[in-house]
Each structure stands twice: as C-alpha cells, then as structure tokens.
C-alpha cells in the first residue's frame, strides 16, 4: 500500500466509490442480459411447443 499521507481518505474514498459504481453497472448489465436471454428462450420454447395452426 503506497503512503497516501494526509490525503489517504480522499484518495481511497474516490477509488472505493468509483469501483463500486463500475462493479454495480457491470453486475446490472450482466443480470439484465441473463434475464433477457431467459425471457426470449421461454417465449421461443412456448412457440415451438404450440401446435401449428
């Protein structure tokens, strides 16, 4: 850990908040991607299972 001197709180808080926002954004995007894939797969499976009209 580098010696951040009297600005340690300033620098660390900037890094912690920014990395938390980035991780949150990535996690939300991945979760939404999985949700959309599952939803489309469910609808397509239902369509394929339905008897032809």
């Amino acid at each position, binding site marked *: *850990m*580098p*010696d*951040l*001197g*009297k*600005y*340690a709180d*300033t*620098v660390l*808080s*900037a*890094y912690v*908040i*920014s990395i938390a*926002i*980035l991780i*949150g*954004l*990535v996690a*939300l*995007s*991945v979760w*939404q*991607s999985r*949700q*959309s*894939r599952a*939803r*489309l797969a469910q*609808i*397509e499976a239902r*369509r394929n299972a339905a008897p032809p*009209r």
Partner: protein
Amino acid sequence: MSIWEYANPTRFMQTSGKLLPLVSVLSFACLIVGLVWGFFFTPDDYRQGSTVKIIYLHVPSALMAINAWMMMLVASLIWLVRRHHVSALAAKAAAPVGLAMTLIALITGAIWGEPMWGTYWAWDPRLTSFLILFLFYLGYMALWAAIENPDTAADLTSILCLVGSVFALLSRYAVNFWNQGLHQGASLSLDKEENVADVFYFPLLVSIAGFVLLFLALVLLRTRSEIRLRRASALISRERLS
C-alpha cells in the same frame, strides 16, 4: 461489405457475440493494469500530493461521459435518418453507461476538489455543464421508460439527444472559452506541451483504454439484451394477434 449490414439484428448478434468476450477481457486487463499502475507505482505530485492518483478515474470517466453522449448522438441520427432499430437500441443501451461515467466524474471531482479548491462544488462552467449533462442522461432514460411505443420513444429520445449534445460539447470545451471557472485546462491534449508529466501520462492512457473498452463491452452487452427484449415483445404481440 457495408457497415449497414450491422443494422440487421441477426448480423449484429452474430458479430457482437464474437467480439464481446475479447473486448471484455481486454477492458478488464487495461483497467487492472492502468489503475494498479496509477495507484501503486506513480509518485505524488509536488502540488496535489497523493490526490493526483484520482486522475486515473476522473479523467477517463469524464472523457467517456462526454463521448458516450456523442456516440448516442450518432446512433440517434442514424435512427432518425435511416430508421435502423439496432442504432436506436444501441443509443438506449449506452445511456446507463454514460450516466455511470458522469456520476463517477462528478463524485471523484468533488472528492478531489475539497482538499484542492477548498470546496466540493462550485458553479464553475465545466462543473455546471457536467451536472446538466448528468440530468440529461436521467431525462433520456426516463423518456425511454415513459413511452410505450418503442418507435415513438426512439424518435423523442433522439430529439432529446440532439438537444443534450450542446451540453456534452459545452462540458468538453467550457474550460477553453470560459476563463472565470475553477476547473483547470485539459489534462490530455494532442499538443504534447499541454499534457501531464510522462510518469502520470502512460498509466493514464492505459486507464483511458480500459474505460473506452469497458464502455464498448457494456454497450454491446446491453444492446444485445435490448434486441432480445424487442424480439420477445414482437413474438408476444404476434401470439396475441393470432
């Protein structure tokens, strides 16, 4: 081969599916190298002390906050002129990423400003135009969410994007023509004389590359989600009609 081939959702899904893992890995690698290099292996600045390490987050996020809006502007113009749905969905997908970048730039700027300027916030031209850009991102996302018809939503958000681009450009150039503000000039420039010292410059470039690639990876991922959701709602509408 034409770029307009990617306006076809199937073609876009195929190509983005191949690109996404590569872009994601490169983005993660550049972010780790840039931030670790900047945080652990660069010296303190003679005036700013260790707060100079915030530059590796603040400058790339601010740069991406503006350029994300510019990307949305181009995608919105393509939608308005050529009516390609993928471009409208790409603009929609980019908005939350741009919002997060703007938020990081505002927060890291405020945290840095307190010990350096003696205040978290000042109504400086660049800070104020960035805050307005942040509000435009919120408004853009709210407009997409508020309108049920996707084509109408794409039309109206595209117009909002055109208006907001004034503030995106203002955020970029405010420091050049408004001299009464607190915010210093650009940390990076094509003119070498204006750049930060090399010891800070190279890790900053790696960090910027990481943020650019992260933006690209997230936009690809989120556009793919939007395309799937659009197809799902089209299939449901077809089921209801038949």
